């Protein structure tokens, strides 16, 4: 008890016990820097093509405080634009989703019309009308100068819509490397369809959520997982495979339902419904830097995406996907399986979120630095914290700050562009 509080907070961790400094989760300056250096410079999964099935369908989102709209053109191509009017800066589309066929009250069908002074843009971002243009601008301004700002946008890896805020974006595939290798066969054999979406504004740092999605050590928190999953043969055979760029993946494990059956018949999952190429009750997972998770488990694919709002506030969106060709009965079973664990009233999700809310309360803006341990080495099994170490290695590189000492720059080994497609055990 003779130790100072600040001393206690920093006493653990070292060369053999990797850790990060809690200020990376709480400091306002670091948060702004993350938006600038990471979120504005990364390919982000923002939607799925099944959310925009028809020409002129659109979806809106925000990335690092920039309003963004995704539109499927009349040519079927999906494009992304800054959702801001070039005239006086008004937000253009306000609905979360819609179709441009329906004109807004002062607009035309098939157009994005700014509600303010009715400038119009087509689904390809070209300005088609500046109201009273020649009377007001003479030869000083015409439509050709005021297209919407188009943003790099790709549909890939199973129909997901990816956006990058900067024209200088590297190719999406280069950013992903081999990260999707294991999942891809199951995502691209049959067209997918989103059947679930909900969201939560949570008072915690966004990285705490990704941390949770990067280890199964917290299965101790979930009653079912603790008393059933963890006792299954093969549970600890699952291995994280870390990639460069901060991504990690887990290859398949077959979920054993016998254990569940003993425990609770009525809440168990559908046994015989899966994804193409995935063994029945198979399970694969992919965590992408800086905050996307794909979780394919038996009959449902869950996707988590995040929008950081403040050092201690994040919007998390949850999607569930099945196959487009699902029969009504199959779809109903996927929905049920998904919700049983991952719905807002599901078995695991409220607990996972509660866990990170508790981290946000233990580690608050304004509190002193605490060493957060990321030091489990368990042969890359799912209770190893390799996923977190892999993430913060990339974070250090992108931020040019050492995660364990954010006032210092990282050593050369980290700042060098990653060369190999995977990283060995013990990354820190």
């Amino acid at each position, binding site marked *: 008890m003779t130790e100072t509080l600040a001393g206690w907070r920093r006493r653990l961790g070292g060369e053999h016990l990797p850790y990060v400094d809690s200020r990376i989760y709480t400091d306002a300056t670091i948060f702004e820097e993350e938006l600038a250096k990471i979120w504005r410079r990364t390919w982000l999964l923002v939607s799925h093509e099944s959310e925009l099935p028809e020409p002129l369908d659109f979806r809106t989102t925000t990335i690092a405080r920039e309003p963004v709209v995704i539109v499927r053109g009349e040519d079927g191509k999906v494009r992304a634009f800054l959702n801001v009017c070039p005239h006086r800066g008004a937000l253009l589309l306000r609905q979360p989703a819609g179709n441009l066929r329906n004109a807004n009250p002062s607009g035309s069908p098939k157009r994005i019309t700014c509600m303010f002074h009715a400038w119009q843009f087509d689904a390809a971002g070209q300005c088609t009308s500046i109201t009273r243009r020649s009377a007001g601008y003479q030869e000083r301004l015409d439509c050709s100068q005021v297209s919407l700002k188009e943003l790099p946008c790709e549909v890939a890896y199973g129909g997901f819509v990816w956006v990058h805020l900067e024209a200088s974006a590297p190719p999406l595939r280069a950013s992903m490397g081999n990260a999707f290798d294991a999942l891809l066969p199951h995502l691209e054999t049959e067209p997918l369809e989103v059947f679930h*979406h909900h969201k939560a504004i949570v008072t915690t740092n966004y990285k705490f959520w990704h941390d949770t999605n990067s280890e199964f050590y917290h299965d101790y928190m979930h009653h079912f997982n603790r008393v059933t999953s963890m006792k299954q043969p093969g549970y600890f055979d699952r291995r994280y495979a870390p990639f460069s760029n901060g991504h990690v993946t887990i290859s398949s494990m077959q979920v054993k339902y016998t254990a569940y059956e003993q425990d609770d018949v009525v809440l168990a999952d559908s046994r015989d419904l899966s994804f193409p190429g995935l063994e029945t009750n198979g399970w694969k997972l992919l965590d992408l830097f800086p905050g996307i998770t794909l979780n394919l488990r038996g009959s449902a694919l869950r996707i988590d995406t995040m929008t950081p709002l403040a050092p201690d506030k994040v919007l998390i969106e949850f999607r569930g996907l099945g196959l487009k060709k699902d029969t009504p009965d199959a779809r109903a079973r996927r929905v049920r399986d998904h919700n049983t664990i991952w719905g807002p009233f599901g078995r695991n999700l409220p607990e996972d979120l509660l866990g990170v809310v508790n981290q946000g309360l233990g580690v608050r803006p304004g509190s002193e630095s605490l060493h957060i341990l990321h030091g489990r080495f368990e042969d890359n099994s799912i209770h190893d914290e390799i996923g977190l170490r892999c993430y913060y290695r990339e974070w250090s590189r992108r931020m040019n700050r050492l995660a364990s000492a954010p006032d210092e720059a990282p050593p050369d080994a980290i700042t060098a562009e990653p060369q190999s497609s995977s990283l060995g055990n013990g990354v820190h």
Partner: protein
Amino acid sequence: MSSVPKRSELRAAVEDVLYASAVHLDSQKFESWLQLTAPEFRYRITSYSHDLRKDMTWLDHDRAGLTALLAILPKHHVNGAQWLRQTVLYTLDDDGPDAVRAVSSLAVFQTVLDVGDAHVDGGSSRLFAAGHYQDRLRLEGGRFLLSDRNVRLDTRQLGIGSHLIP
């Protein structure tokens, strides 16, 4: 609905069930609440997602499933809160000779308990969700039983969500 002729008697009989239901759920007396339900009872929580432009089902259980779900509640980590389901019977329509459809407005308030920072925020109240109960009730042995309930939420932003059902 031939067997309960007077409108006022009908309203009173349904109100008795509806409001008893709110009381039992607020006090987490799930056994008592289940006794207000018929054997064929089905309980759903649904909402329309304006993000996907699709209907969402967030929970869907028959009576056995619901019973199991409620039984498992103590095994879960939750942030305790006292819920107040404020509901008003809005419309009442016949659904065959011995059943009615009842739609009721619903506002759920929460008074937070161990909200994490309970020292500061515990005991404060907030609006948690707004929507409707869409119920079917069936006469059996002279009293109404809930035969179907769809908790139709307007609210889709539910924070961390909940193991407890509205």
